């Protein structure tokens, strides 16, 4: 941050934090199971690299930070504000930057894989809550530099399905982003929609998109997600095709659309329990819809 304090930031200068899903279970399986819209990890990275390079070419003051979302760890891969030495290499800036990102990414993926070998059971879910938390910490650091800073936003490139046990952590991160007015854009490259990212983009006023044709990923990235926050007010960006507001139950980490709420702590359960596992309250006999009887009279005039 120290390298750019004196530069004047206009309102179209962006700080883009890109979260890349490196889940080997997703990238390993995508070619075999879903041949029609397949995208290999290397083609995916090629699209993303072109996108990152084009962002930095659009405006010299713009800044890009890349964070990898693994299955056992998350880490910073690239920060355009701290790269000064490598950019003087003989091949020019762009190839040097690309090879640097590729090298760091490779290191990260093999380290992440090493961790899953150590553990008894590997998980299929990527640690979205971790990389979102890192991105928000980084953005807070940019806010601390004073009133002049690039406009931050987060772009999640997510392929693997949501990890229901991350529900509370992901929601915490979303609310913190909303409070700091940081939009979370989501580009879902997996086969199914992500309820986490639908909510994240809806709550933080970001863009949610699940591209139809993955071989044109760069096109989607550059036309939708390259737009800075100022231009968004005048552009017709994709509108969400509905938002999945389902929650995860605390007892089985299952995604549910109907459930029981503890009146003391608001924990969500998928079925009736005798005792709340979060706060320890003991429940009386089941009053499935106790509010509907006594509240009806007062609620109607409000509606």
């Amino acid at each position: 941050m120290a390298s750019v304090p004196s530069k004047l930031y206009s309102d179209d200068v962006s700080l883009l934090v890109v979260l890349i899903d490196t889940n080997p279970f997703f990238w390993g399986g995508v070619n075999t199971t879903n041949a029609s819209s397949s995208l290999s990890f290397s083609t995916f990275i090629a699209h993303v690299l072109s996108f990152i390079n084009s962002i930095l070419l659009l405006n010299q003051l713009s800044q890009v930070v890349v964070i990898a979302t693994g299955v056992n760890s998350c880490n910073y891969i690239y920060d355009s504000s701290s790269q000064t030495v490598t950019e003087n290499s003989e091949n020019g800036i762009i190839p040097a930057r690309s090879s640097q990102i590729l090298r760091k990414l490779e290191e990260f993926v093999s380290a992440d894989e090493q961790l899953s070998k150590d553990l008894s059971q590997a998980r299929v879910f990527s640690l979205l809550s971790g990389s979102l938390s890192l991105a928000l910490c980084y953005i807070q650091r940019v806010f601390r530099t004073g009133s002049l800073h690039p406009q931050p936003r987060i772009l999640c490139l997510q392929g693997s399905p949501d990890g229901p046990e991350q529900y509370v952590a992901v929601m915490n991160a979303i609310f913190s982003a909303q409070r700091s007015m940081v939009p979370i854009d989501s580009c879902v490259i997996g086969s199914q929609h992500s309820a986490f990212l639908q909510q994240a983009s809806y709550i933080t006023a970001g863009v949610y998109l699940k591209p139809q044709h993955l071989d044109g990923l760069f096109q989607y990235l550059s036309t939708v997600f390259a737009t800075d926050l100022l231009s968004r007010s005048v552009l017709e960006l994709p509108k969400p095709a509905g938002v999945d507001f389902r929650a995860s139950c605390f007892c089985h980490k299952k995604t549910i659309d109907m459930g029981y709420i503890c009146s003391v702590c608001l924990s969500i359960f998928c079925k009736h329990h005798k005792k709340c596992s979060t706060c320890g309250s003991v429940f009386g006999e089941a009053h499935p819809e106790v509010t509907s009887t006594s509240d009806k009279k007062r609620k109607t005039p409000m509606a």
Partner: protein
Amino acid sequence: MSNKYITSVEERRLNGEDREDEEDDDEGNEKGMEAWERAYADERSWESLQEDESGLLRPIDNSSLHHAQYRRRLRALSAASSTARIQKGLIRYLYIVIDFSRAAKEMDIRPSRGVVVAKHVEAFIREFFDQNPLSHIGLITLKDGIAQCLTDLGGSPDSHIKALMGKLEFSGDASLQNALDLVHGYLNQIPSYGHREVLILYSALSTCDPGDIMDTIQKCKKSKIRCSVVGLSAEMYICKHLCQETGGSYTVALDESHFKELVLEHAPPPPAIAEFAVSNLIKMGFPQRAAEGVISICACHKEAKVGGGYTCPRCKARVCELPTECQICGLTLVSSPHLARSYHHLFPITTFNEVASSSFNNPQHKLPKTCFGCQQTLPLPGKKPSLRVACPKCNQHFCLDCDIYIHESLHNCPGCESQNSKAVTEE
């Protein structure tokens, strides 16, 4: 109302001489002061100064204040986590009683007590619904010796704020007893799992009651209504007695910023006392939001609407707004993010420890050079107290700024979220 009598008032000086004088002969003061004198008296510019060690006057240092506030909250946090699984009363039914008697015209806080109170009640209502989803607020005003219900209990912040801002007129006396009687009548009807609370914002120094207020206080105590008062003038015995009897808190504001702080203290859910509410499991649905541009007929207004709207998961009826109750099948419908806003109360993250300087010399430990959260370079150990903290669970190191952000806003440890041991142990 013929048999009025004024309850005895015990005053205590709180803020030195100036406040006292203004209460006593306010009329005389206003006439006796020149315009330029009034400007100083109104602005209270001396309050934003403090004396440094050599006796010079300096503006109050806000950064040290901020850090002290953080430390205080951190201590409260660690106290809460040590008594694990604290119960919080998260479904609250709160009446805010606002004193709009002639005392609210006082201008010791500019532009007047009443206007300042209304301004901070607005902020409070928003904060309250942020922290207490599914809770309800009602507004009551005190004016001309009577208590009047301004808004019924409801969950929409905007309707309360709109009603309040349209009613900023101050006159007559305030009556605590009338307010408590009115609130008692309303709060007696609410479901048993709800927490009954009253927050009284009291400007006056007396209460003008039609009967024995002590009976009313006992009635509230019996109905388990927790009454709290934030005073704007001096401490009053009757308020203190009311709060003591019903388990509420009584505070008196010194100035506007202090008042704001005192009011906002009532926004986080109070620790639930087991006997105060019966715990229950309530069945609820989490509807999906329909795509923009889809036309459908809603069940609540019976009109065709374009876009937005939510679908009841049980009967698939369309409703316009959340939270609500499905008009067709009666299921309570809430938006799950609304609930999730309070989950950080349930799973507070542990306090980070300062990294002891002894561990710096340990050759086995390779110290991280940067903050795990924001990548800022961490200073190496000096003689000063440690400038880095570590999470006791994941052992990652963080800078102090990240420490504050993580505990005050994010409520996630980036280190713990970036490792998988948690998920594996659950298997």
